[in-house]
C-alpha cells in the first residue's frame, strides 16, 4: 500500500462506528453538534484514518480516546451470508472497497481468526468465479472500449448481477483477467496468420 495509492486513500475514508471514551469539549462537531461537548460514550461514525489513530493513542493507564467496532460491511449479517454462499453477496453494496477495508480491519483485529478465514474463503471462491466470467466476456467482438471503472465492463447475461456486486479489488482482478485472456487470444491469432 503506497502513500499515493488512490484506492488506499479511498479505503481510508470508510467509516467505522466509534465510541468516545472521554469528554472532549471542542469535538462536538463530529457528532453534528458543534457547540456542545462530545460526551464519553457518544457513538460517532469516523473515517478509518481518524478512528485508527484515535483508538491506538492511549494514556498511561492504557485507555484510548475511542473504541471502535467492526463496520456494518463486516457485521454478523454479512458474514453469515458469506458463509452460506460467497458468490451470492453483492459486496459492492456493503462497501466499494470491501476487501481493502477488510484487510485494514484484520490488521487492527488480529484476534478475529474466524472472520479472517471467512474472508479468505470468500475471496478465493469469488476470484475463481471472476476468472470464469472474465474469460467468457467479449469473446466475440472487441470488449467495450473504455473501461471507465464505473460500469462499462461490457457484460451481458447471467453473470451481470454477480459482476455488478464486485468491489474495487475484484474489479481490478476482473479487468486484469479479461485483458490477459484477450491479449492471449490476439497473440494466438497473430501466430496463426504469419
Amino acid at each position, binding site marked *: 500500500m503506497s502513500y499515493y*495509492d488512490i484506492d488506499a486513500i479511498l479505503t481510508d475514508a470508510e467509516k467505522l462506528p466509534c465510541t468516545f471514551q472521554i469528554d*472532549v469539549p471542542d469535538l462536538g462537531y463530529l457528532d453534528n453538534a458543534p457547540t456542545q461537548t462530545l460526551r464519553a460514550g457518544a457513538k460517532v461514525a469516523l473515517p478509518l484514518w481518524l478512528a485508527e489513530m484515535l483508538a491506538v493513542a492511549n494514556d498511561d493507564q492504557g485507555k484510548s*480516546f475511542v473504541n471502535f467496532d467492526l463496520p456494518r460491511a463486516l457485521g454478523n449479517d454479512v458474514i453469515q451470508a458469506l458463509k452460506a454462499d460467497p458468490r451470492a453477496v453483492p459486496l459492492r453494496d456493503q462497501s466499494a472497497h470491501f476487501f481493502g477495508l477488510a484487510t485494514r480491519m484484520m490488521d487492527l483485529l488480529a484476534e478475529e481468526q474466524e472472520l479472517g478465514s471467512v474472508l479468505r474463503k470468500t475471496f478465493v471462491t469469488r476470484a475463481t468465479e471472476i476468472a470464469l466470467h472474465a474469460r467468457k466476456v467479449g469473446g466475440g467482438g472487441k470488449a467495450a472500449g473504455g473501461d471507465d471503472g464505473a460500469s462499462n465492463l461490457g457484460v451481458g447475461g447471467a453473470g451481470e448481477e454477480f459482476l455488478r456486486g464486485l468491489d474495487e479489488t475484484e474489479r481490478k482482478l476482473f479487468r486484469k483477467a479479461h485483458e490477459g485472456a484477450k491479449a492471449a487470444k490476439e497473440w494466438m491469432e497473430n501466430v496463426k496468420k504469419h
Partner: protein
Amino acid sequence: MPLYGDLGNKLVQHAKRTQNLIHLPPYQAELVRAVAREVRDLDRDLKSILEPFQGSFDPTADQATACTLLVNHLSMRRNKRCLLAYHRTRADKLEELVWSGADVLDLAGQQTAGGANGVMGANDGGASSLSPQEEDYVRQYGDLLAAYKGQWTDIDLTGSLEPPRDLFIDVRVLKDAGEIQTEYGAINLTRNSQFYVRQGDVERLISQGYLQKLG
C-alpha cells in the same frame, strides 16, 4: 455537517476517475484551494489551542485537549495526503502524455473533441485543462525527454514498439499540417487528402493526430 477531510476525499475521487480516462480532465483549482484553506484553518486552530500553554503542554494532564489536537493534526495530514495524491496522479498522466508524443501544450486552449484516431493511443482534448504549474511541468519534462532522446540520434525512444509490416503506408490527413520534407521530396499535407508515404516519416504526425493511418 461536512467534516474535515471531506473535500480532500472529493479530490481523490477526481483522481480515481482520472486514472481511467485517456485524456486529462480539468484541474480542480477551486477544490484544491478549498482543501489548502482547510489546512490553514486547522493550523490556526491548533496554534490558538496551544497558545495558553506557552510550549509546555502535557498531553497526559489534559486528555480532552490532547484529543482535539490529535484530531486536528490527523485532519491536516489527511488533507496533505489527498492533495499530494491528486497532483501525483495528474503528473503521472502528464508524463505518460509526453512520452506518447501528444502535443500537450499545442492543444492547450483549444478543446479538441475526442478524435477517432486510435492509432498509437493518440490523445486529444484535455490539455486545455492544465493548471499553470502543470503546463510548466509538461514543458520542462518535455525538454528533459528531448535532451535524453537527443543522445541517440539513430533510434527514436518514443517511436512505436510495433515492428512495421510495410515500409510505406496509406494515410489520410485529418488536420492541415503544412509541408513536410521526405527523402522523396516535399509533400503538402492538406486536410482530407490522401498519401502513400514512408511510415517513418509520418509516425510523429500520426501520434499527434494530424494523420490517420489507413488500412
